[in-house]
């Protein structure tokens, strides 16, 4: 994962200003902030509300509704999303996930001691080559505990 910058109000305000003229700018702004800083700080809420003439409650509501947006700096340096949907279940994903989580020593939404955050996801569109995962946004098909280890090793390199 590209290393994130520490939160910076001026830099955030610049991102908001750059995108605020888009129709329905809230999601593009939240995505851009998270891409830059790795998360969306609470200080962004009044900033976006003012720029888009929305209430703070509306922006907060949007920020908290979507699974993608993080409100805390990411705990891990790498992110693994494991698909829990039906096509992956048909290829034994439930058992595999148990094995992977045990190896990593954490639970869903948790972070392993070596800095890998694991999250569930429902369908990555790799259903004919299940089970599937994303490692830092890179797809991984026909997942096994070993292939995940190899992908993480490559991501760290």
């Amino acid at each position, binding site marked *: 994962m590209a290393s994130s910058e520490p939160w910076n109000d001026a830099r955030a305000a610049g991102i908001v200003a750059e995108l605020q003229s888009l129709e*329905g700018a809230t*999601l593009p702004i939240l995505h851009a902030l998270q891409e830059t800083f790795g998360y969306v700080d609470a200080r962004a809420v009044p900033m976006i509300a003012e720029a888009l003439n929305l209430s703070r409650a509306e922006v907060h509501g949007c920020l908290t*509704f979507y699974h993608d947006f993080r409100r805390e700096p990411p705990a891990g340096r790498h992110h693994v999303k494991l698909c829990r*949907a039906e096509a992956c*279940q048909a290829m034994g994903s439930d058992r595999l996930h148990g094995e992977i989580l045990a190896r990593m020593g954490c639970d869903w939404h948790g972070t392993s001691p070596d800095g890998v955050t694991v999250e569930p996801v429902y369908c990555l569109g790799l259903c*004919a080559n299940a089970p599937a995962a994303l490692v830092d946004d890179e797809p991984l*098909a026909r997942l096994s505990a070993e292939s995940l280890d190899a992908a993480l090793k490559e991501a760290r390199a």
Partner: protein
Amino acid sequence: MSITITVPQDAVALGLGANRVARAIVSGAEARGLDVRIVRTGTRGLLWLEPMVEVATPDGRIAYGPVTPADVESLLDANFTEGGAHPLRLGKPEEIPFLARQHRLTFHRCGVVDPVSVEDYRAHGGYRGLEAALQRDAEGIVGEVRESGLRGRGGAGFPAGIKWNTVMLAKADQKYVVCNADEGDSGTFADRIMMEGDPFNLIEGMTIAAVATGATRGYIYCRSEYPQAFRTLRTAIANGVRAGVLGDDILGSGKAFHLEVRLGAGAYICGEETSLLESLEGKRGIVRAKPPIPALKGFLGKPTLVNNVMTFTAVPYILEHGAKAYAEYGMGRSLGTLPIQLAGNIKHGGLIEYAFGITIRQVIEDFGGGTRSGRPVRAVQVGGPLGAYFPDDLLDTPLDYEAMAAKKGLVGHGGIVVFDDTVDMARQARFAFEFCATESCGKCTPCRIGATRGVETMDKVISGIRPEANLKLVADLCEVMTDGSLCAMGGLTPMPVMSAIHHFPEDFRRAGDLPVAAE
């Protein structure tokens, strides 16, 4: 002259090491003094053969697959750059039976062209549909779509021509065309393959829709789980603007169409069209009550045509070849072709574009070759997480909107997920509720509360706590959710649950009847 080698960069191929394969080919060829040019394409949809590498020879393309980085040396030793013999040699891709037997009206360019090249798209017949549309008036275009019998491919199956007509007739200073590319159903990936492999087909379909309805702005709402599709679309749109197929003067017609791709944020519910529009406006993805329908009051309150990726991509063919040519495929009121996605526990999974009317069994056996585990098929879920689970004796049902509905199932987005005999249907029923509880937008009570109560009640059934009484409760709950939910999320969650209970009753009584005191 350099040798052209295509290596897919479809998400499946990438997930199986296609980038490393491409790098290995480049360095291996360099070491041998071979002049190769690598073109990154989408996939042809023969997904068990990915990464499938193709070499251009004087005889046409020759495919090899599935290729791992470790195979590249032996491929080069076997002169694969000239189509040489090798255990991975598959011959001409279009002669592989899985592909040769399909009706590829919409997907014929996928895996063939450079996805982000306008020039390559046009060289393979692209933009003939838009050119034909520009020769006609709006009524003429909408009439062609109506007569083709095209129905919304997102799942609801609403006649596209009627929707287009409503937006065309609406009076407003600004109208919009919005593509629903929030393909969240498990077991579906046709939208993804199209966006990664032939995005200009979607862009052309949306442009035709804009010309027909009088819209000048458009958005593609792409789910964030598809980073590769998003990147491809963004590049394709930028290239389209440069080439004059998008922007203020499309193909020199004087008509404007401005298109933008937007990224979702991991909410399944945003695949529901009103929730998608809320999200596009920058709000929480909460379902809107209808009416008003989006065709009259959609994005920012303006008339908006919302269609699925597969609906838009069917349109260029219809305008180029005529409604009749399209309507020759299919059966009953389900006309044209359906992009079927075969997935789960299956030997030969992938994309099968075929006329409506093919049976589920034909898809699984003739195309899929049975399960990947080699065990017997026990259950098949058709149409995504809100679709029914079918047992073996319903597999001869044809894929047709009405025929599937008659068996209390749905075609949905055309995804088929196969399970072998190790599946526990009580767990699958529980999962359907769990998924609904996770993804419900929370606006209506039957869905928000019902899903959670459903998980709890299924847990009791699974642990053998008064299974008969609790299954009756589940049936009651499902009735309330079906009748009382605002949208298909809560309204169809009962479909996988009740089909599992109805067709696989033995899985719900495994724990036996424990004494009540255990509760």
